């Protein structure tokens, strides 16, 4: 039965974010990850002998200027050409902003749909009609789907579009449209892009976000890849997810309840990471370790997070190709904080002061005006990212207050005469 591959949000040469290089970190594992994942896609297309490949937008990062990325893309398109695999592309918001996309002379097996109006390509030998339209501007706010032509009843109809549908958290609401808009066209399969989380929105008709090809930050966890669609006699027979990522992101929640010593902490972490390693197959892992639970070792953890960072990273590396993105110390002490600081002790006073501290950006800079010097020196990217540095969000300031409180209480208790 004929098959095609549907991928989106390639973001070629976009670097993996949030991974700080540290000694012995598996640098090779993250190098050129998006390229390698893209190569996996090309290999998959050739191996499965698909009839065509659909790319539903965002081939490149909008602000990425190196034309070598485009040349790499063209080279891989030529490879598909050698295997007689046509490629159909609609541009996404990133592509609309990209210099590379505009300049790229593509081989004749590649069709890029118009950005002015919907266009239809008919593959008579297969009985397939592909309808698509790309973005002319970065911010496409009109309902593109509504203008797509109605299905041609003689063909198996596919709609190719970069859209956030009726909105998805963490994604700009571009080319908004409703599921009803899509269904009304009467197509058999909607190949969508833009949303990085894989999602099968519906099965009649099939509306599929394949997710991005390679996770690039800790918010993009889990298996990533493309959808392999089998169709026959004008109907979708099967939609199969192919894992094509070369590195996997994971949030590893580790419950350290009752842990009293380093050995037991290591054992729990080892076990938690081990499970993720098994799930990722032979892929390297980039993970965020979240330590939780009420445990006797709580103070020891918070008093020297730096040391624990190093030791746990070392431990993770010993388990395989594992890159620890960040370690969040969210453990709790076994006793209530009030009992720990006692009555009428300086610690109790400190705790009350901390609890009474209403921290926000303004109050913070008022307390520590010298931090503004640092802020002025930091690269602008840090403030433009999805998690900007010193944001306005109250959760951030509450988190910071908590961390500082844990740090101080832990340090003071650790340095008590009894320790």
């Amino acid at each position: 039965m004929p098959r095609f591959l549907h991928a989106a949000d390639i973001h070629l040469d976009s670097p993996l974010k949030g991974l700080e290089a540290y000694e012995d970190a598996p640098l090779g594992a993250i190098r050129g990850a998006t390229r390698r994942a893209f190569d996996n896609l090309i290999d998959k297309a050739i191996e499965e002998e698909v009839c065509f490949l659909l790319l539903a937008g965002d081939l490149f990062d909008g602000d990425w200027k190196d034309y070598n990325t485009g040349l790499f893309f063209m080279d891989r398109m030529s490879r598909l050409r050698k295997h007689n695999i046509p490629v159909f592309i609609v541009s996404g918001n990133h592509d609309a902003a990209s210099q590379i996309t505009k300049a790229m002379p593509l081989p004749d097996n590649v069709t890029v749909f118009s950005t002015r109006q919907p266009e239809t390509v008919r593959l008579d030998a297969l009985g397939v009609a592909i309808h698509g339209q790309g973005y002319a501007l970065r911010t496409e706010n009109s309902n593109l789907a509504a203008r797509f032509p109605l299905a041609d009843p003689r063909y198996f109809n596919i709609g190719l579009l970069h859209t956030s549908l009726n909105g998805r958290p963490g994604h700009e609401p571009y080319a908004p449209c409703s599921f009803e808009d899509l269904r009304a066209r009467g197509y058999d399969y909607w190949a969508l892009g833009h949303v990085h989380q894989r999602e099968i929105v519906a099965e009649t008709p099939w509306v599929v976000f394949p997710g991005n090809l390679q996770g690039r930050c800790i918010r993009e966890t889990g298996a990533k890849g493309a959808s392999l669609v089998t169709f026959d006699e004008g109907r979708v027979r099967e939609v199969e997810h192919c894992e094509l990522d070369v590195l996997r992101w994971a949030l590893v929640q580790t419950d350290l309840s009752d842990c009293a010593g380093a050995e037991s902490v290591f054992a729990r972490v080892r076990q938690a990471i081990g499970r993720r390693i098994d799930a990722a197959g032979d892929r390297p892992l980039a993970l965020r370790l979240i330590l939780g639970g009420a445990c006797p070792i709580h103070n020891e953890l918070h008093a020297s997070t730096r040391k624990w960072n190093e030791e746990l990273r070392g431990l993770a590396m010993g388990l395989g190709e594992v890159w620890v993105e960040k370690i969040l110390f969210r453990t709790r002490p076994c006793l209530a904080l009030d009992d720990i600081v006692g009555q009428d002790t300086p610690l109790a006073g400190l705790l009350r002061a901390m609890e009474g501290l209403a921290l926000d950006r303004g109050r913070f800079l008022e307390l520590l005006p010298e931090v503004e010097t640092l802020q002025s020196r930091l690269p602008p990217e840090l403030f433009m990212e999805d998690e900007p540095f010193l944001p306005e969000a109250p959760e951030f300031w509450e988190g910071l207050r908590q961390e500082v409180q844990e740090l101080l209480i832990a340090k003071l208790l650790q340095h008590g005469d009894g320790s």
Partner: protein
Amino acid sequence: MRITRLELKAFGPFTDRVLTFAAKDPGLHILFGANEAGKSSSLRALKALLFGFPERTPDNFLHASDQLLVSGCLQAEDGRELAFMRRKKRKADLLDLSGNALDPSILASFLNNIDPGLFAALYGIDHEALIRGGEDILAQKGEVGQALFAAGAGISSLQKILSSLDDEADSLFRARGTKQEINVALARHRDLHKELKATSLSSREWRELQTARDDLEQTLLQVEAERNLKDRTRRQKERLRHAMPYLGQRRTLKTQIDGLGQFFLAPEDVYTRWQGLDQEARAMRTQLERAGLRLTELEALASALPAQQPVLGEAEAIEDLLQKLGAFRKGMQDRLGLEGQRNSLRAEAALLLGQVRPDLALAEVDLLRPVLAKRRVIQQMAGQYEALQQRMSMAGQQGLEAKQQQKTLDEARRGCLIDLHRLSLWQGELSRAVMLPLPLPETVRGFVSAWEELLEQGRAVKQERDEIQKGREEAFAALQKIVSSGEVPTETELFSVRERRDQGWRLLRRQWLEHADVAVEARAYDPGLDLPDAYEKSVGHADVVADRLRRDADRVALFAARQADLERLDNTLGKVEGKAGEQEQAMDKLLGQWQALWQPCGIEPLSPKEMLYWQNSFEQLRFRIDELHRKEREVQAKENRAAEELSAAEEALGQWQRQWHIALTGLGLDREILPIEVPDLLDTLESCFSKIKEAEDLRMRIEGIDRDAAQLADAVQAMLVRVGLDGLAGQPLDQSLIMLQGLLTRARQDRTLQERYDKEEKDLRQEIRLAEATLGRLNDRMNSLLAQAQCAFPEELAETVAKGKELRGMQERLRETEETLARIGEGTSITELERVAEAVDNDALPGEIDSLAREIKEELDPGIKRLSQKIGEHSAELQRMDGSAKAARIAEALAQVLARIRRLSEQYVRLKLAAKILREEIEHYRAVHQDPILQLASGFFSQLTLGSLTELRTDVDDQGQPILVGVRPDRARVTVAGMSSGTRDQLYLSLRLATLAWRLRTNEPLPFIVDDILINFDDDRSRATLKVLADLAASNQVLLFTHHRQIVNEARAIEGLGSVHIYEL
């Protein structure tokens, strides 16, 4: 709360060790343990009891981890008590005394729900913490807020925490720094950014380059086409110029060949072949001639050889004889030596025989063989003899030993008798002493205690009696004293005087009212006075007594009391006397029983206590006597055994001697032979026999040699006759044999020669036959060659061949010329070349060629080179733009640096905020607690420094910060920097104690645990500290663990508000 008991059931070096901290007040409890005695273990045990065992413990070396157990009892201020146990377990480690799980919250309520860490900080101090605390105060420069906060929270290194926060933040970022982690990362970020910009390829750049290269390639194609055309023309002309001379040469050769005309062209090699055959034929003829000559020579030589000889038929027999000659000669040689050896062996045998039986000749020696046959038996008997001797001497030895031991025992017996005598009370035989039916020690001990009890009673009675006597005397003396200070009227006296007055009144009344005669009675009433006077006197007397009685009421009462005392004492004395009587009776009875007890032994006993000692000594002596008797019996048995063994040994020796005699009769010696001699004697005899045997063997070998020699001589003689050398008979054997050998050799040589001649002749004849045939064939072939060249004679042949050779040479040169032309023409045919050459001006040709070559070399080729180079450059540039991931790699590095900057910046923010908040809180704590706590601390500090510093105060330093200063008795102020390190330690301790005391006002007390903090204090300050702790102990339990005996000694002399207790581990 206080701890009333700590039980180390199984912990560290301890098993079931109990420490009971019993005191009316909370008390200062000093736990002393020398090194290794378990001071630290017991401290850990206390912590484990209160808060559980740590995950890893050093205290499981004696008891396994799962066996570790501590138990204890706590008492709350309200009197509640909790006794419980703790074992090392992750869960359910808390048990009540019956081993049931105990709810931890019950224990927690006794501990005020305090966190273990906080308890250790607030209620624990050890030497290291004290030193750290002192150092930290110095590091803070005595800053009041920090000092108070640190002491209040039980933190000895607050300054360290503050500076660690500051230092870490500083190591992360500084506005003008370059080496700080964030600064470094920012610089790296900038560099990478630049690098990314430089590495990134823009799409415009790529397109321009691509177009430029395409244009250049087009131009290059055009220039190359022009160059190719010109070069072709040049090369054509060049060819023609080269071909011209060869075309001429070709024409000339063709003419010459035509000039030679027609003739028969014989094969080129025919003459050479004919010459070769002629040579061969000549050689063959010479060979035939030489063979004929040699044949004649051979025939002459063969006829000169002698006829065949009979000796050849005996060749093998002769060689056999020659071989035997060697053996014969060797045999003769050996025979001499063997004869000598035989003679000397026989002489040696005779000599050996002489040592045994000088009377026997060598020939009679066989008489002695039977003796040698019994050799083993004789040797065995000799061995037995030694054993028998040994046995005899052992038996004798044992007898002697027994006698010796008997002597020692006699000595011991005398000792026992003397000791018995010394012990006295009983004399008699030792054996009777053993049998003596002494009373049981338990019985005697019963008497001792009864005796003691009675004596004690006696003493008590006596003491009582003495005391009563003394009381009586004192009471009597007091009575006397009252009496002696004036007569004491009594009720009795008053009664009697009133009676007398009433009697007088009654008489008077009878006389006065009834007028009765009472003269007699009146005289009796008072003989001296008449009745009225007497009555008056009695009335006056009665009044006086009544008055006195009233006036001296106190003395009267005292007198009456003393008198009552005296009576009571007399009464008691009577009772005591009674008791004394009873006691004496009891004593007599006991004495009777006591003596009756010893009656059967015939012993007059001393006091029971003495008898107990006597009996003990007597029992020891009896034990010794028993031992003595047992040993005597043993010695007697030993003596008997020795005597029996001696007689048995003697009998065995007799038996042996008889057998020995019989065994040695065969030797025929007339004297007694000692076993020790026997081995030598037998060895000599055996050597003698072995020598005789060797001599006999030699004799047989000599006979063999003689026999072989005779046989050889006979064989040689027979041979001489067979080969016809009869004349040599009688010659010595070896000479005859050498003659035979010579004869045989010569005959063999002759035969060999004859055979060789025959073979050579045969070969020669064959050779001659073959040579003649070959010669015939050669002649035939030479003739056929002549016919081939169509020549009649060999002489014609040479000329014909030379002419053919000339023609062939010319044809070859023509062919070479044409080949050269074909090569130059490079495909152009010779005919075509000749055609073109005819049309060309030969002289103009080089000029045309030169001008074409110049144009190509100077204009077209450099143009092509320039273009190619440019295209190459463009291609290289485009090659570089190969879709490489270099810029992407830089972007990856940038992302990594950004992550780093983010993490470090967040950490920086945390540290800054933490330091800021901590400082603010320290200041806040100071503002609230400075006055009350400093006041308390001041008192402790003055006590601890023995008044060397009388007060603690706050002052302000150069920066306006409040700081701590000490005040000397002369009001001089001392900053913390000016204090000795010991004084700073005491300052820290004062602040800790002040906080503890301050907390006591609001919180229930918890035990203060002090671990050897006095190590560096001098003796006086040590005592002062102990005093302070003892004072504190009145309201708060203090447990002081120490390794130092000195501390314990000093503590014994301390008198504080609280009680002091000392425990040695």
